[in-house]
């Protein structure tokens, strides 16, 4: 009465069934119904329903608005590691061109599967720590671009830990910062990860659907990053626009 039996490691069959159901939703495509899944897996209906409800509760699956069809939830995207896409020559040339325009570091990050992956870190400068970037995205300009895109950024932030005295650590401050990022289309952090370094990042969006696919970032001394930098932001946006058709 109080819900499905909780899965423990002692129920290998249940775990296996859950994985089969997940796989079936992927291969059948969005909109597949519980009955169809139960039939194609030859799994008892009640079991299938229970597993589906469990996967929905854990947000690996979602029910579509008709409530009978299923699709992969966003959380399922976190099961796969981001595909390390080898950057094509044309895109690399654009990033290198940007590097030629500035003495600061230029990094390119992909947001495939809602995970931040540095796909072209600047070879002449130290790159941000990939682990920190993934775990504490709120402190990084590249991370804030991703968070600002979320309906609820809290889903991707586990804890707000300070790195320096400047790090944003209150939920309401971060919320305000992210709203500004979404509004202005540019993210910035000044000395929030390291006292002496700051970063500006602009989004790269798919030309057809406007979905956030990557971010182009510029890292430099804190004091200089804090300046308006209108010219350099225009330059970043310019290059981001040229990268968009090459990455999407």
């Amino acid at each position: 009465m109080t819900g499905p039996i909780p899965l423990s490691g002692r129920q290998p069959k249940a775990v296996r069934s859950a994985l089969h159901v997940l796989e079936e939703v992927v291969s059948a495509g969005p909109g597949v119904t519980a009955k169809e899944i139960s039939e194609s897996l030859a799994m008892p209906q009640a079991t299938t329903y229970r597993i589906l409800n469990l996967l929905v509760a854990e947000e690996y699956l979602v029910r579509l608005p008709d409530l009978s069809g299923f699709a992969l939830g966003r959380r399922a995207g976190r099961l796969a590691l981001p595909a390390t896409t080898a950057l094509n020559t044309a895109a690399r040339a654009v990033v290198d061109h940007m590097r030629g325009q500035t003495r600061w570091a230029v990094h390119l990050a992909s947001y495939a599967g809602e995970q931040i992956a540095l796909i072209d870190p600047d070879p002449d400068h130290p790159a941000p720590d990939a682990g920190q970037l993934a775990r504490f995205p709120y402190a990084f300009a590249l991370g804030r671009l991703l968070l600002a895109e979320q309906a609820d950024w809290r889903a991707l932030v586990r804890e707000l830990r300070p790195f320096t005295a400047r790090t944003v650590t209150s939920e309401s401050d971060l919320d305000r910062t992210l709203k500004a990022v979404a509004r202005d289309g540019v993210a910035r952090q000044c000395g929030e990860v390291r006292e002496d370094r700051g970063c500006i990042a602009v989004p790269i969006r798919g030309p057809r659907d406007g979905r956030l696919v990557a971010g182009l970032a510029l890292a430099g001394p804190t004091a200089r990053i804090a300046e308006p930098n209108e010219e350099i932001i225009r330059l970043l946006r310019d290059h981001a626009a040229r990268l968009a058709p090459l990455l999407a």
Partner: protein
Amino acid sequence: MRDDAPVRLRSRSPVEGLERRRLRPLEVVAQSVSGAAPSAAMAATPAIVAVSAGHGTVWSFVIATVLALLIAGCIARFTRRMAASGGLYSLTAKGLTPAAAYASALASLLGYGLLAAAALVGAIVYLDALIGEVVGATPGRAGAAVIMAVIGLGTAVLVLRGARLSARVVLAVESVSITLMLIVFSLLLAGGPAAGAPAEPTAMPPPGAGGILAGVLPALAAFIGFEIATALGTEVRKPFRSVPRAVGLTAAVTGVLYVFAAQVQVFGFSATPGGLAGQTEPVVALAAANGWGWLPVLLDLGLVMSFFACCLAASTALARVLFSLSRDRVAPRVMGRTHRRFRTPHVAIAASVPVTTGLPVVLLAAGVPLMSVLVTMLTLAACGFLLAYLLVCAAAPVFLHRIGELTWPAVAVSAVIVPILLVVLVAFVVTRPLSGVLLGGLAVLGAVGYLLLRLRRPAALAAIGVYDETTTGDVLFPHRGAA
């Protein structure tokens, strides 16, 4: 890919504006438990049940608990699959006709509104008694009216400031209240039966099956409000797990508390002529028999806190139902607005709390005895809730059939619970003539409202039942799905 079934997703949820997925599961459990207000029922209901059930009082509560668990099971068929802000009517809409959903919405508004008002009255009644016990003088009618207005204002502020804040207050207050009640009842149990004329130990009516069943009526009414978590589906983390659990857990926990309280009181009066059934204030009488004059202070404090938490929880739910009805375009559109910072339906709160506070203040000022106001309001609220439960239980198997996930236990549970609830509802109305008349009047008003709505906004009525749909932001590769 399935080309035959294009997936259309909205980019925004129809209930956007509320703080989505923030409440902790425990905070939602606290709201549901407070809605049921177990402390008050623990003190008052066993004596009412005993009038018909006699020594079988405990069994009436056991049966009522099983029924509450079955209702929770029916509600869970929906809440495991969808998250809503409108509570039971949003769920009913997915199984039954728009007319049934509309009836459920009105029943919920009546239920939550009167529950909030009754809780306010209850808080005042026992606060009055508490002040009397501690200070020796009561605040009088004007003083009570002022206190009532202040509590009403406090409720409005807390509910407005956000679901999380009020949920935390409710959690803290209800925990203290239940702890106090457990202390009180454990002491009474340890104190043994009250001494009385030992000649006739079994003066209570014999516990026939009919008596026990009649006792189920008031016992089941003690559970009303336990489903409040369903109105917070949009705002809780992992709603498909948290909401069904909160409702089921509340039914189980309050059931255990009631059975315990009933057992203590039946045992306490086992040596008294007339038994528990003859008592108007059983806990106070038991405390007096043990010579514990201070025990009523603890009891009254627990009751005041419980009623306050209940008022908060019911006001929260009431505002959500109004908000959801507005997003359905059934209620005025302005009630669907949300506060930009607090992310609560502030217009719906501003429209509802003054009514639920004003009604008891006016009745108090008019000199109507508060205890009878409390009983009448709770009776009417119970009728509203029972109707909403009846509809949602009937809707459950239809809903499952519609989405192709029907199983035989779902049919069996509804087949058992729906006729029982129908009998309970009819018996409830028939045995309380005043409520019957008032309800009849409300039903006529509701029917008129329905007809007007059907004439003016047939499309809105046909589409009633918004919920927190899956949006493009929730799905992995939403664009691939649309291909």
